């Protein structure tokens, strides 16, 4: 799995010029990489999009205007879930116990790794003539986190990749992603502005 050092630095909120932070991030990456047990599950659906949400051909409906807007020209989509596994969480706790700096760097490295992993999974998907749009996840914009339940049940995340949802709708293991990937005939692709569809414009991680 590719490790995007630059992204990890960004998640850590480090000064990109900071050599000490560079070393911190690399040290932590070396301590973590053997703990990664990455897994994913994807499923493709036909869908109908209206102004308030999207309905899959299996009958399940996601309600979110932002999601609907994101998917407006899509007749098909892919549901995806991916995780780095429980041992990464254990490693993050372990590193944080001895050093808060390493703990925070471990969070950042974990976040960068799961994003890279999702990119790699997406790159390997064969979608024929259709292009993939960027990932859109529960919790983005007005898409309620509670709808994670629907995604989890369709992908059977627990059984397939060991990803579970807590009563508070958090994912355990924590370094995990679930997302909808719209498929479109239009000539746009993954490289579109990652954060363009998110309503949280004050987010400190927002891509400029």
């Amino acid at each position, binding site marked *: 799995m590719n490790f995007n050092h630059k992204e990890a630095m960004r998640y850590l909120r480090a*000064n990109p010029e900071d050599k000490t932070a560079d070393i911190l991030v690399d040290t932590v990456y070396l301590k973590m990489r053997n703990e990664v047990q990455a897994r994913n599950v994807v499923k493709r659906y036909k869908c109908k999009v209206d102004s308030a949400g999207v309905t899959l051909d299996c009958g399940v409906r996601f309600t979110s205007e932002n999601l609907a807007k994101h998917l407006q020209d899509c007749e098909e989509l892919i549901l995806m879930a991916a995780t780095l596994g429980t041992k990464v969480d254990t490693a993050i706790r*372990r590193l944080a116990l001895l050093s808060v700096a390493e703990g925070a760097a471990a969070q950042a490295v974990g976040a960068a790794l799961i994003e890279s992993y999702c990119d790699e999974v997406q790159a390997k998907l064969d979608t024929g003539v259709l292009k993939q749009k960027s990932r859109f996840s529960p919790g983005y914009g007005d898409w309620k986190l509670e709808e994670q339940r629907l995604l989890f049940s369709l992908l059977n995340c627990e059984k397939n990749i060991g990803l579970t949802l807590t009563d508070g709708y958090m994912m355990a293991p924590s370094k995990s992603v679930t997302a909808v990937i719209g498929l479109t005939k239009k000539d746009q692709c993954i490289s579109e502005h990652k954060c363009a569809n998110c309503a949280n414009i004050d987010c400190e991680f927002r891509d400029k």
Partner: protein
Amino acid sequence: MSNIRELLGKQLLFFDGATGTQLQARGLKPGEIPEFWNFTHPDIVGAVHKAYYDAGSNIVKSNTFGANRVKLNNPVFSIKEIIKAAVDIAKKAADGRENKFVALNMGPTGKLLAPYGDLPFEEAVGAFGEMARYGEEAGADLILIETMSDIYEIKAAIIGCKENSSLPIFVTMTFDESGKLLTGGTVAAAVAMCEALGVEAVGFNCGLGPEQVQKLLPEMLAGCNLPIITNPNAGLPVERDGKTCYDVEPDEYAEMMYEMVQQGVSIAGGCCGTTPAHIIKLIEKCKNLPAGGYRNNNNTVVSSYGRAVNISEGPVVIGERINPTGKKRLKEALQTSDLDYICRLGLEQINAGSHILDVNVGTNGVNEPEMIAKVIPALQAITDTPLQIDTSNYIAMEKALRCYNGKPMLNSVNGKEESLNEVLPLAKKYGAVVVALCLDDKGIPDTAEGRIAIADRIIARAEKYGIPSRDIVVDPLALTISTDAKNAATACEVIRAMKARGMNTVMGVSNISFGLPGRDAVNSTFFSMALAAGLSCGIINPQSKAMMDAYYGYRALAGYDEGCKEYVARYADAPKAQATIVSEISLYDAIVKGLLDASKKAAAEELAKGAAPLDIINQKMIPALDFVGQGFENKTMFLPQLLMSADAAKAAFDVIRESVGAGEAQGETVIIATVHGDIHDIGKNIVKVLMENYGYRVIDLGKDVPVETVVNAAKETGAKAVGLSALMTTTVAAMEETIKALRANSDCKIVVGGAVLTEDYAQAIGADYYAPNAVSAVNQVNEIFGK
């Protein structure tokens, strides 16, 4: 009708194939709950079972895979009704035929157990236990715990079943191609625990096809002595037109299963994608083969959720330092529930080379059963190094054994009647490797013969409880040579005698030098002697260089270290210990620059100069932290710099604490917690370290903290400030609830923080202060205390 126990391992038995795939083929929709078909389509469910019995299957799995109350938390039908209906259908399909059995099928809850997720262990035990009770009442012949991917959940299921039924228990697990469970456990770790907990067969199901399972089979055959089950999928899943397909055809499937049965499998069947046609071919091909049956591995294995340590493969190091005897700082940590400190002691020993950690938390002013039930999960949340539970308090012993994730080591039982009667049943029930001390009511015999006689008595008694001798590790007891020069020789003689009869041994090595000066010299030499005599486990301080030198030296000399690789890695490849040049730098500068070693050294120097701890904190450390904090707030410094400074200050703080005790270096009390339902705590942990650096006594209640716990802590301590963290929109409600309850019970000020909060949001839920980051949290608390 015969009992399945009479056939198990003696003749090859056959499971059924997939139920889910078969029901889907007959109209079960995605998302529909298969267990409800026991009521809506009992004929179809029955027909699927009957087809398998007709194909020749001996065991059919009841349609109850997801019928646990965690997963089906608001069922239209009760769990009891579902299980009754399902078992009835399967029994009817068997139609009284000879050697046809019904397995009560139990799948996972779909939740990760705490501390890794949010399902409490006892809730899982309860959910599985209830299923077992209803299943036995309904007339199931055995219980199949299947498709498991987490060792801790398997333990909960087995304990639940054992406490609620007397049915035989089979366990099959889902591994990936590298031989790991979804939660990272290895085949060896999983089966060691299952066997010790008393299940009657173990094996593989789902996830993989026969080809992949075959590659993992040798590890399972070597890892336990139980009959092995293989229920693979009909190959790896392939997505086709939005459908999951399995491509291995019946003939090919039977061919591959045949090879596995020859390798030692006792029960063969199938999982996803297999059909009655697969089972027919399987039986045609294999019917004349004998069952693999039981094996006779004599390994002593302890395990955690992640890995197994095989003590029979060569001597191992058990870290002794989590034991408060004579350790002031650890006593304080236990008295104040400072779990982080205890976990750090564990990590230091693991980094120094421990294979197992001894855990003893008994000290004055500590409720040992409560404390050990906190410390064990806290350690297992950060490491997969197996633990040795060390206590003479039977209540604490059971609590620890119960919550332990894996197959633990238990220290200890001895030859006294009371000890035998109390400890052995617990060791059996929770599947532990037990340390047997060579002493009894008359004390410790002077002679090796006397001690060996006690060991033999304990081994015989354990056998009566069903504990095999391989799960007993004998402690010959090292008594100090300062009272009797023969003590070392006696201990070594016991070790040699045990080794000669294939028994493993364990010993607290450093007792040998009690009362002597320069103990390391005697200890390490004695350790070498004991290893040469055949000692299997040394309970030692792994941070003692002399002891680890003896250990690695012995391994190289005794042929345990092939090509001296470990030895060379430790002594030649290790980076040359450069005389760490810590330039003369002030404590203030060391903290500002985030230099750990320099900070420790400067703090020690300040103390040596006679500076008062509080002066060091207030005049050197806090100004440095203020400088960095302001830099962070003004955005001239970035988060990593802030955190490295915090680490450096903490290191200095630890130096001060070690020398003067925690109490004298701590000020006002602040409570912090991540609210109920929220399991992310990195932000809270950063706040904790910063606050401690500012001298606060921080009571960290952890994550996912119930409202009452926060309120009780506030009432008990009278803390004036409480910090709450919540990361998600879904958990802010719990934060609001906590604030309300605090208001009703305490006059503390409340600071809140977390990714989704804003100033307005914080006000709306009734908080006093909003802290957008860790520095701000400290500033708000300083304000509360008028600093």
